[in-house]
């Protein structure tokens, strides 16, 4: 598994023109995805094959009532852009997907590298980079135990926990989406 975890500022990486976006570009796009004035609590960008999907999760508590979770998905493929909305009052499983993002098995920073604690006779396996020209980015807010706000950005290539989350979320929320201008499930 190939993961790059950055807390705070994500190092901007140079972009060479091909199919996919870079982590730097994704970060800028994800953290500004406001919906009806709400700031996203988390967002995911998936560059898969010729399709780019951007998921954003918003929490709204109108009048202090029960939390309403809204998921917005923007999909661009073959020059077409499609924007869809799903709401937790119609599809409660949206909350489960938001929760799943909090539970992603994301490794901590490995500054010393994976070999640092391995015995000499240990035989390593090749890194699993997954499909080429495919990448996933998660952006979310977090808080330290000292109530210091941090921003988390996790990026990996075609194989990793965000790819797994995306595949499951695509399946679990399949019937929840409606076009952004037409409320209610399709």
């Amino acid at each position, binding site marked *: 598994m*190939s993961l*790059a975890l950055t807390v705070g500022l994500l190092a901007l*990486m*140079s*972009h*060479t*023109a*091909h*199919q*996919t*976006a*870079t982590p730097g570009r994704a970060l800028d796009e994800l953290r500004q995805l406001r919906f009806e004035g709400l700031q996203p609590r988390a967002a995911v960008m998936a*560059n*898969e*094959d*010729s399709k780019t999907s951007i998921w954003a999760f918003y929490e709204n508590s109108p009048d202090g009532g029960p939390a309403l979770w809204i998921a917005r998905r923007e999909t661009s493929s073959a020059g077409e852009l499609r924007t869809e909305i799903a709401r937790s009052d119609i599809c409660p499983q949206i909350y489960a997907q938001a929760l799943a993002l909090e539970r992603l098995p994301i490794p901590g920073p490995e500054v010393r*590298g*994976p*070999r640092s604690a391995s015995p000499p006779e240990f035989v*390593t396996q*090749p*890194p*699993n*980079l*997954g*499909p*080429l*020209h*495919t*990448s996933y980015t998660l952006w979310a807010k977090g808080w330290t135990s000292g109530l210091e706000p941090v921003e988390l950005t996790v990026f990996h*290539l*075609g194989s990793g926990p965000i790819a797994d989350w995306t595949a499951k979320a695509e399946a679990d929320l399949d019937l929840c989406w409606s076009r952004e201008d037409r409320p209610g499930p399709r």
Partner: protein
Amino acid sequence: MTDPNAPPYTLPPIDVVGQRRRPSGLFPAGPGGGGGGNNPGGVNQWELDEEGDPPPPPEGEGSHPCDDPETALDWNADAAAAEAKKEFERLAAARGDTELYSREWHAFIYEDQNGRMYLGPIVAGTINSVTPETAGMTPNNLVGFIHNHPGGGLNPSGDDWIGFDNLYEWVAQWSSGGTARADQLRQYIVARDTSDPNSPMAIRVFNKNSSRSSDAPAPEVNPDGQPCP
């Protein structure tokens, strides 16, 4: 002032590292004469280093890159890349594909203990992606990888470079040669220059020192390159 009686100055032989040429240049000659296959081979060309200085020219007879294990690695890896491209084309034809424009193909290039290059499993993907097969890969045998871009894109994509960097780190961490071994890693991209309708699907080579800007020219590998004898 130039001595009018001095003999005419003769340029020393110029070699490109491996079996490569700069844009509009010629491929270097093979060790037995000729660049392999149908390519007659050109003058040997040395690449300039970062300071613009050429490396020392070869001395005397028998100074072909194949004579030195270090330079033979580049030579043989390029030949393996040429072989991979031919295999991609053969497999694509067997599937009824439109040459290498229908899907991506990928293979890792390995080196055995005798310095002989060989290809790992060749895998076919979609027109935009392919999942590499790492069976048989160790940090000590990995030399590089090759894949094609059906839609163009002469250089590695941003994700291709991230994948390269991950493999570099893995080899540097785990191989017996450490970073020196990782420095030998290279990636080959097979693509056609879409701005030139007459351009062929060419092999270009990149390593950790390659420019990562999209418009930088990269050396082109002889598609008919042959390994050292």
